[in-house]
């Protein structure tokens, strides 16, 4: 039986008017690999015809058959006579099948000329930026419409989903955000201490920590961490559902994906980001206090006193005011990117990356605009 068959072998017998190939054993993928080179360059000399004798072949698979078939095809094209002798029925069947098959296919979709491709890429990138901005505005509009609908029919707010995302994006992010804010407070105080000590103005370290942490750093870092943590998760969740046609299924059932997927995430993030920002504020100040004590010998009570004196409510206010806006940017960007995923796992990866990058970029740009605005109105 086939199990006892030997490995494939090949024997050449030269005669004046013909070259005979005696084949035997198992002509399968493995033998094919071994004899591929030999067959590729095989050529009968002069007026010899090629006879391929199949009588000793135990089994023939498609790879083995293909090598023989392509040999015959090549030689026939060169005008050599080729004959297959002693074909057994199943082997003849395979060869017959191969003969009917188109042996060339395009492996990839055709690619344009590289020079054209580069020019096209640049043009496309420019247009894409415009398209992307338009699409984002359209997405914002869609979200606003579904929000309005939900306000008119509060049943449409999916409260359990909102709480679920608040837990995932908010509660579970507290440890990492607290730690990062604490370390940042520590670093600011340390750097400030080194500089301010030169002027004997150590106590102003407290003011510096308070202003930088409360106004800018705490909320910015929180937004960046949330964009990386939850923004990517939102895109991946929605994207996987897109690939799986779950989003399409929702539409056919009459569920609005904006309502089911986007709104709960948006609302949850807009609620938790200010809270996370507040946690970061507190931890940043604690970090600053710890470093002031270690480095400058400012006792905790002194630190708190100074904080109270220098505290401008607007420092805290401006920081926390920005939080819901950042939350909206992150949630909308990541949900939008999730909705744009289509088909392949590669596209899922692409849009997840893009979601995080765009969200962080937009957050920083908007933060700069806020700074200018606050400076302008003088708070």
């Amino acid at each position, binding site marked *: *039986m*086939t*199990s*006892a068959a030997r490995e494939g072998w090949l024997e050449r017998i030269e005669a004046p008017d013909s070259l005979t190939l005696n084949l035997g054993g198992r002509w*399968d*993928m493995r033998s*094919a*690999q071994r004899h*591929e080179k030999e067959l590729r360059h095989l050529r009968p000399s002069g007026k010899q015809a090629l006879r391929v004798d199949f009588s000793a072949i135990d*089994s*023939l*698979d*498609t*790879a*083995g058959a*293909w*090598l023989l078939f*392509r040999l015959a095809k090549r030689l026939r094209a060169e005008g050599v006579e080729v004959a297959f002798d002693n074909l057994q029925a*199943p*082997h003849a*069947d*395979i060869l017959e*099948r*191969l003969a*009917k*098959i*188109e*042996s*060339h*296919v*395009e*492996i*990839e*979709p*055709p690619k344009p000329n590289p020079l054209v491709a580069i020019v096209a890429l640049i043009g496309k990138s420019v247009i894409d930026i415009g398209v992307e901005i338009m699409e984002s505005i359209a997405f914002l509009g869609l979200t606003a419409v579904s929000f309005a609908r939900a306000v008119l029919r509060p049943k449409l707010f999916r409260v359990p989903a909102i709480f679920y995302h608040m837990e995932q994006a908010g509660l579970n992010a507290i440890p990492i955000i607290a730690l990062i804010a604490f370390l940042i407070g520590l670093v600011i105080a340390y750097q400030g201490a080194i500089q301010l000590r030169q002027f004997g103005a150590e106590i102003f370290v407290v003011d510096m920590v308070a202003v930088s942490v409360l106004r800018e750093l705490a909320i910015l870092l929180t937004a960046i961490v949330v964009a990386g943590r939850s923004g990517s998760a939102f895109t991946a969740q929605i994207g996987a559902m897109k*690939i799986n046609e779950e989003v399409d299924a929702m539409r056919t059932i009459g569920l609005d994906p904006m309502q089911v997927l986007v709104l709960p995430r948006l609302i949850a993030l807009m609620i938790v980001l200010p809270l996370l920002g507040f946690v970061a504020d507190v931890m940043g100040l604690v970090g600053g206090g710890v470093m002031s004590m270690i480095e400058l010998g400012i006792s905790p009570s002194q630190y708190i006193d100074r904080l109270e004196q220098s505290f401008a409510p607007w420092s805290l206010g401006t920081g926390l005011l920005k939080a819901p806006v950042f939350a909206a940017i992150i949630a909308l960007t990541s949900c939008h990117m999730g909705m744009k995923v*289509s*088909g*392949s*796992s*590669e*596209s899922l990866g692409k849009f997840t990356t893009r979601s995080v990058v765009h969200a962080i970029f937009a957050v920083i740009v908007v933060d700069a605009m806020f700074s200018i605005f606050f400076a302008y109105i003088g708070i």
Partner: protein
Amino acid sequence: MAEQNNIAIRARDITVAFHGIAVLDKLDLDVRRGDVMGFVGPSGAGKSVLLRTIVGLNKRVRGTIEVLGQDLDKLNYRQRREIEERWGVLFQSGALFSSLTVAQNIEVPLFEHTDLPVDVVEEICALKIGLVGLPPEAASKYPMELSGGMRKRAGLARALALDPEIVFLDEPTAGLDPIGAAAFDELVRSLQSSLGLTVFMVTHDLDSLHAVCDRIAVLGDKHVIVTGSMAEMLEQDHPWIRDYFHGPRGRAAR
């Protein structure tokens, strides 16, 4: 010894459980070399689970599996790869790599397991695409651009890429049009006769069962209830088996 050599897949005492609930319990199974073995059973009986367990994708609680005479638990890395070269699997959902074209999908096992030159690999790939009845234009398409039936065929072409000795097919003809399904049956038959291919085929397609299966195994109550030829199946008086083969569809297929 001779007896041993004739068995392609030997499973003994297989128990598979999910979350403590057994899906397969003390299942024994022999698939002879060169047989096309059809597996039938109600939905949820564990046919896909059995297939996945044999190829090592599901953990089992107990039991031994021998494939081509080798105990799968006792293989080292290299032996395991050799066995993997000798089988091909078509998953129920096709399981094509979504970021590769059909042709690239088929090339993956060829590049991974052989050192054939690129042009031969591409030709073999074209061949497999033709063999399973896909049009040549489908080669450069991505899976998401194909119809469900075409994806199935592409998955089959990938499973057959290395000309394996055993192919595991999970509902290969589901989603194919009847003409395509018949062509597929014929393909399995001819590969089986020329290569001595062993086929492990989960199918609900009664026409396929009639046309290509040498033996049929019925899965139910967490184990193989009975195995035998089509003729033997028709004589069974287990209620499910009788309904299955003597129901309106069963009669039409005969």
